[in-house]
């Protein structure tokens, strides 16, 4: 599961250099090592005419073990397992002998950032080619040993076989010889019918360690001489330390040091260009760190600390003011981002008009493992142990803040106790490094849940005004969508008006190609509240408005919502979802998942009173998905989502069980936001502090999720983000079906459903 802005380099996957991207060599242990380029480094290297410097490694040892260095972060999405499966398939490896090694940050790996539901998409072809090439070299080595035709040799589970003479050689026995061979070009890849690892339910490689408590996350780091710290950060956004009195904190047993952390300007997260004085707001929080011999002593020291704060730029902000500003902005015109035909005139002349406004709040990531980082800065070097989705970004920020070169920085990427986009941010690593430098020791900086909730990079709030015109036959004549929201790109990069390639308008595209007159416009809320990338990013908000409004239009037109969706999909292949993937929508695939979800959900079959069924469909991150939700609405207005049917076409499936797990989990994630999540601001500060006032979906809230996967050998699509956006509109549509009432604000204000 993962997140990233679509304008980052992450999104230019599957465009790796065609020529010579594999190199082989001998390891110190006389094994075969295959280095491979993973995009985008390959393309850049090719463009620059640079020498080969592989950014991923496969090693086959003389003892027959296969090692894959995984340069992507594992945060529950299963990337360490999936990447191993792709490699092992083409290598024809023995699954019991393949192991994944987590790569430390190193520039040689290129982009290690884990986001945008991109890891498998970007690694699919290069990993397959690496596996197939290594296999071919091992076969050649065997064939030469036996002096038999290569065509008579086959492989199975880590062994080359010559059936005629009943001879076998294990890969380990061939590794040294294979390493001396030239690297063959354009080795053919397996026919999908021959897959024996892909498309099977391989168990997660980290599972056995997780269930015995031996999986190590960032927060579990312990290094010799390590101290523990917590930080008092400014309560209001943009606030700064005015003065502080360390005396009481220093009096707490075990407290070693109390040090100020400066509010340092942070570089862009993904190596983007940023103009000077661009108005970006991304700074390290700053604050006062309490460094102690244990976590609890640091927490106790912080309780005793006195800090006076400068209030900061956001000190007079409140949620109510922000909501009112957005509501005001959507009444007028915004920046025109996509226009087809003459939507304003078409709306004016339509005999019937439909209009609705939708609202979504700021929401937090709250991974179960809160942010944390262990740093050791010494002798001009910086060593980091971090649960991070963005080691390259963190390294860049460390280099600029500490004023040391990149090669002096080591980042050990640990397992992540959830990511969801929070750990694309880099500031917690810089903060830990500054504290370690000041303390003169390795320091683990721990964040309480309160710290996490109050100092997050929130999914932006947004307000949507949608209008549609209906013609004499109840056909849609015009569709107008005005989004008002703070800009995430602007927070990190400056400026405040994004374009279609930004991270604000994904999910707003449907149904732009299917209606004759269309307008998408945007207005921007200025705020000091930090914004960031939250699992499914902009699609999470725009999609809610669009997919809810389709049902409202259907109701006004007297059409079945499923039927209207079918008509919109059939009308004309729509252009790509705004701000979304580059490829145009495949209408057949989109319709197939919609029909499959409807069929499996029993669309059209009556439900008992108080229950309703709703549907939503989505194309993004290369994946087609439809969700049908069944909801029970109690007399007091409480709702329970009983069942969710998911139909997903994510192209080539690596591991169907992992796809199902992401669907289940993505629905829980989206449902938490739909039912509960709202970060509110008073005096420029977040009001929520823990799971009592920022609740999560728990086991009794969890619907039964049924997943139906459309078989496909198309390029793999993402699976981390696609399941998140549709659950909220599917539930809103189901609530409407059950009650005739439309909830247009998230989290659902269910008191509006109470029967008096």
């Amino acid at each position, binding site marked *: *599961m993962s997140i990233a802005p679509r304008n980052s380099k992450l999104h230019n996957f599957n465009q790796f250099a065609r020529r010579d991207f594999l190199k082989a060599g001998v390891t110190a242990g006389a094994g075969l090592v295959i280095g491979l380029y993973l995009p985008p480094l390959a393309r850049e290297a090719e463009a620059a005419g640079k020498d080969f410097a592989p950014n991923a490694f496969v090693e086959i040892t003389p003892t027959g073990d296969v090692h894959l260095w995984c340069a992507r972060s594992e*945060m*529950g*999405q*299963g990337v360490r397992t999936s990447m191993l499966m792709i490699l092992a398939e083409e290598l024809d490896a023995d699954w019991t002998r393949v192991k994944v090694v987590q790569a430390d940050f190193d520039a040689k790996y290129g982009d290690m950032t884990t986001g945008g539901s991109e890891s498998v998409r970007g690694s699919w072809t290069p990993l397959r080619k690496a596996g197939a090439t290594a296999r071919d070299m091992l076969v050649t080595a065997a064939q030469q040993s036996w002096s038999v035709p290569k065509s008579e040799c086959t492989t199975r589970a880590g062994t080359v076989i010559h059936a005629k003479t009943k001879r076998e050689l294990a890969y380990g026995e061939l590794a040294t010889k294979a390493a001396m061979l030239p690297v063959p070009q354009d080795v053919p890849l397996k026919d999908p019918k021959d897959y024996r690892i892909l498309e099977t*339910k391989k*168990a*997660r490689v*980290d*599972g*056995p360690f*997780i*269930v*015995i*408590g*031996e*999986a*190590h*996350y960032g*927060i*579990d780091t*312990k290094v010799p001489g390590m101290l*523990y710290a917590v930080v008092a950060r400014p309560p209001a956004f943009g606030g700064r330390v005015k003065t502080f009195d360390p005396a009481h904190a220093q009096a707490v*047993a075990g407290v070693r040091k109390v040090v100020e952390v400066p509010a340092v300007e942070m570089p862009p997260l993904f190596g983007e260009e940023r103009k000077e004085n661009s108005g970006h707001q991304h700074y390290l929080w700053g604050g006062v760190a309490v460094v102690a011999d*244990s*976590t*609890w002593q640091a927490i*106790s020291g912080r309780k005793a600390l006195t800090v006076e704060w400068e209030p900061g730029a956001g000190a007079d902000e409140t949620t109510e003011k922000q909501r009112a500003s957005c509501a005001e902005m959507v009444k007028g015109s915004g920046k025109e981002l996509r226009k087809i035909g003459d939507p304003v005139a078409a709306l004016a002349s339509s005999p019937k008009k439909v209009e609705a406004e939708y609202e979504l709040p700021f929401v937090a990531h709250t*991974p*179960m*493992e*809160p942010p944390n980082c262990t740093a050791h800065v010494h002798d001009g070097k910086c060593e980091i142990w971090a649960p991070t989705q963005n080691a390259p970004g963190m390294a860049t920020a460390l280099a600029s803040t500490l004023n040391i070169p990149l090669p002096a920085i080591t980042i050990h990427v640990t*397992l*992540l*106790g*959830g*990511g*969801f986009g929070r750990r694309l941010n880099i500031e917690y690593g810089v903060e830990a490094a500054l504290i370690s430098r000041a303390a003169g020791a390795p320091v683990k900086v*721990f964040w*309480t*849940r*309160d710290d996490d909730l109050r100092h997050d990079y929130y999914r932006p709030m947004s307000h949507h005004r949608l209008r549609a015109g209906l013609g004499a036959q109840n056909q849609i004549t015009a569709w107008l969508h005005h989004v008002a929201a703070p800009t995430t790109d602007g927070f990190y990069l400056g400026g405040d008006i994004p374009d279609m390639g930004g991270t604000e308008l994904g999910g707003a595209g449907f149904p732009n190609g299917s209606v004759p007159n269309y307008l998408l416009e945007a207005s921007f809320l200025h705020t000091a509240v930090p914004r960031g990338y939250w699992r499914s990013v902009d699609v999470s908000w725009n999609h809610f408005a669009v997919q809810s409004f389709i049902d409202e239009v259907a109701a006004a037109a007297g059409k079945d919502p499923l039927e209207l969706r079918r008509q919109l999909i059939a009308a004309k292949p729509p252009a790509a979802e705004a701000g979304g993937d580059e490829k145009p929508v495949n209408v057949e695939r989109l319709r197939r998942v919609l029909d499959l979800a409807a069929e499996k959900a029993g669309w059209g079959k009556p439900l008992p009173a108080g229950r309703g069924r709703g549907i939503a469909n989505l194309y993004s991150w290369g994946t087609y998905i439809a969700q049908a939700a069944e909801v029970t609405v109690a007399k007091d207005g409480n709702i329970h989502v009983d069942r969710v049917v998911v139909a997903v076409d994510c192209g080539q499936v690596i591991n169907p*069980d992992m796809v199902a*797990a992401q669907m*289940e*989990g*993505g*629905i*829980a*994630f989206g449902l938490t936001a739909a039912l509960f999540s709202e970060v509110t601001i008073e005096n420029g500060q977040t009001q929520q502090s*823990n*799971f*009592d006032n920022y609740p*999560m*979906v*728990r*086991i009794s809230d*969890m619907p*039964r*999720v049924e997943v139906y996967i459309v078989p496909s050998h198309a390029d793999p699509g993402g699976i981390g983000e696609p399941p998140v956006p549709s659950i909220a509109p599917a539930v809103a549509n189901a609530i409407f079906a059950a009650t005739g009432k439309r909830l247009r604000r998230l989290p659902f204000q269910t008191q509006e459903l109470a029967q008096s």
Partner: protein
Amino acid sequence: MDAISIKVNGKAHSVEVTPDTPLLWVLRDTLGLTGTKFGCGMALCGACTVHIDGEPTRSCITRIAAAAGRSITTIEGLSPDGRNPVQLAWLAEQVPQCGYCQAGMIMTSAALLAKNSAPSDADIDDALAGHICRCGTYQRIREAIHQAATKSKPQSKKVASGGAQ
């Protein structure tokens, strides 16, 4: 700071911490048993659940003074070989995603099965109501508990309650 005696996973320890220190931090920072996780610090999420005298307990709000002299079991001590029926069912059902909250889930589930060898969905929901999994593995948790219940029945509740006790 006086020394406080605690028994963890069958082994006696003497720790020098202030009496208000939560058991969680003694386990993690002092004893290096990091399988027990911090999630909220206020007994709202269940990530820190351990057994104290067999009862599932939130170690984040249990002062070390209150745990003194009692028998504490952590995820590391639930079984000698990782083959508690709950752990096996967790793998069979492929429950974990990121895995961070799972130690707490497993400890509560093992304690549930020690008392109720055939829990219903409602029993499971009740027992795990205090737990949060942000990855949303709940559906598989239910399945795994049912599976563990089936598997552990013939062996009686001794196995389900954890071999280290």
